């Protein structure tokens, strides 16, 4: 399945959202495979990052019960799937 936004672009956007919510992580080397729970991100910060991504792409993650990813690459795949569904709809 191909997505209309490539994974690198989505990750870059997610990274911007992380930086916006947790400025302390701007200088931290976070790779897509880095587990989020290794970054010291609090639960409310994580919820806020997801919110920022929802707002950015106009997609629904939390209300669909999909906020169960552990790392950036899982998050990227989820966003890509939701964007594909959105385009298909």
């Amino acid at each position, binding site marked *: 399945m191909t997505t209309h936004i490539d994974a690198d672009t989505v990750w870059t956007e997610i990274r911007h959202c992380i930086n916006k*919510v*947790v*400025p*302390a992580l701007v200088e931290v080397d976070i790779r897509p495979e880095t587990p989020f729970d290794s970054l010291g991100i*609090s639960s*409310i*910060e994580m*919820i*806020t990052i997801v*919110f920022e991504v*929802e*707002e950015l792409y106009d997609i*629904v993650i*939390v*209300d669909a019960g999909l906020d169960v990813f552990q790392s950036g690459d899982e998050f990227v795949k989820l966003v890509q799937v939701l964007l594909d569904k959105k385009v298909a709809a």
Partner: protein
Amino acid sequence: MSRLDPFRPDGSNRVVVTGMGAVSGFGLGLARMWEGIVEGRSAIRQTSRSFDALEVTRPAATVSGYEPAEHFSNAELMMSEPFSQFAQIAAREAIAQAGLEASHLGDAAVILGCGGGGEQSREDAARQLFGNRRPRAHPTTVPRTNHQAAVGLIAIEHQILGPGFVIATGCAAGSHAVAQAAMMLRHGYAQVALTGGTEANVLYCAMRAFDSARTVATDTCRPFSKDRSGFALGEGAGLLVLETMSSALQRGAEIIGEIAGFGMSSDAGDTLQPTQRGPVRAVKTALQDAGLAPDDITYVSAHGTGTQLNDRVETRVVREVFGAQADRLLISSTKSQIGHTFGAAGGLELIATLKGMKEGVVPPTANYLGPDPDCDLDYVPNEAREIRINAAVKQSFAFGGVNAALAVRRI
């Protein structure tokens, strides 16, 4: 009762003030606020707030020179609104002045007044949900809007484990909080308490709402003056360290003054228009509780909103309570200088009163243009007055017809 007797005649603890911190339209810190007060200045300016193309401009005293990032980390700012931040900053100053160490604070109480809580986040949520028609509010909306956020954040910062709560009686909340804290100290629920009030709602919605209620001044706040037209919004926090006389003496703390008595009442009349009987009952109760007679009082820190009705009724209240003594009383309204800070008003105005007691200066009523026939007392117009204050009363009245009065005494 001797000057430093630790107990009241009924055997309960005497309660004294050992620290004060202020955030006001004059800026951060009690020193800035006091300087503005004694110089007779007003921090009220025409202030604009907007929503898209809609704009409202009204007189308000916002906290000048406040840079949140200088006082809090980004993570802290994400979780707090200005009303919490102001309370935290004022608490730091009050605790430092009192010389309290961590060992004194563990069992302390934190009892604050706050009228609106996180109005900024509520406004943001309204824009997001109704204006932008988005399905979700920002995840920090709830923790930021809670009135008790200010209490929680102070407790976290100073590791305070004692009782903590917020009293939300609008314009009287700060005075109610001080009364409640004093009551708890008297009866041993704590030895130290942080109390006072905080507010930050100089926002588009609040401006429009108070404007619709016909309470906001056209130009500035002129309490008890001819041509007065209402109040000016204000924001800030006024926090005090209260402790039992025993605790203060044991620590060798400098005592600023005594919370000698308090009184509370309800108008049981109207939710907007004040009665005379409600405030009279609160002030008389405060004097009785303090063991003070009307002629013991030098100064009354008025609620003094600057509305036609409040100032007329409040003048009658003073005349009824103080009788023939009313004509030698000094009465003024600090709202003419720092605006109406709602939940913070009781705290900030009590601090101004106690500072005046300590310095021998009565705060003025700024922006006073001349006498109004219905307001015929000495309102200390425009210039602070040097005079020794042995005892004073702070009175606060709120919509809903709820009233609180505090009687303070020099030690």
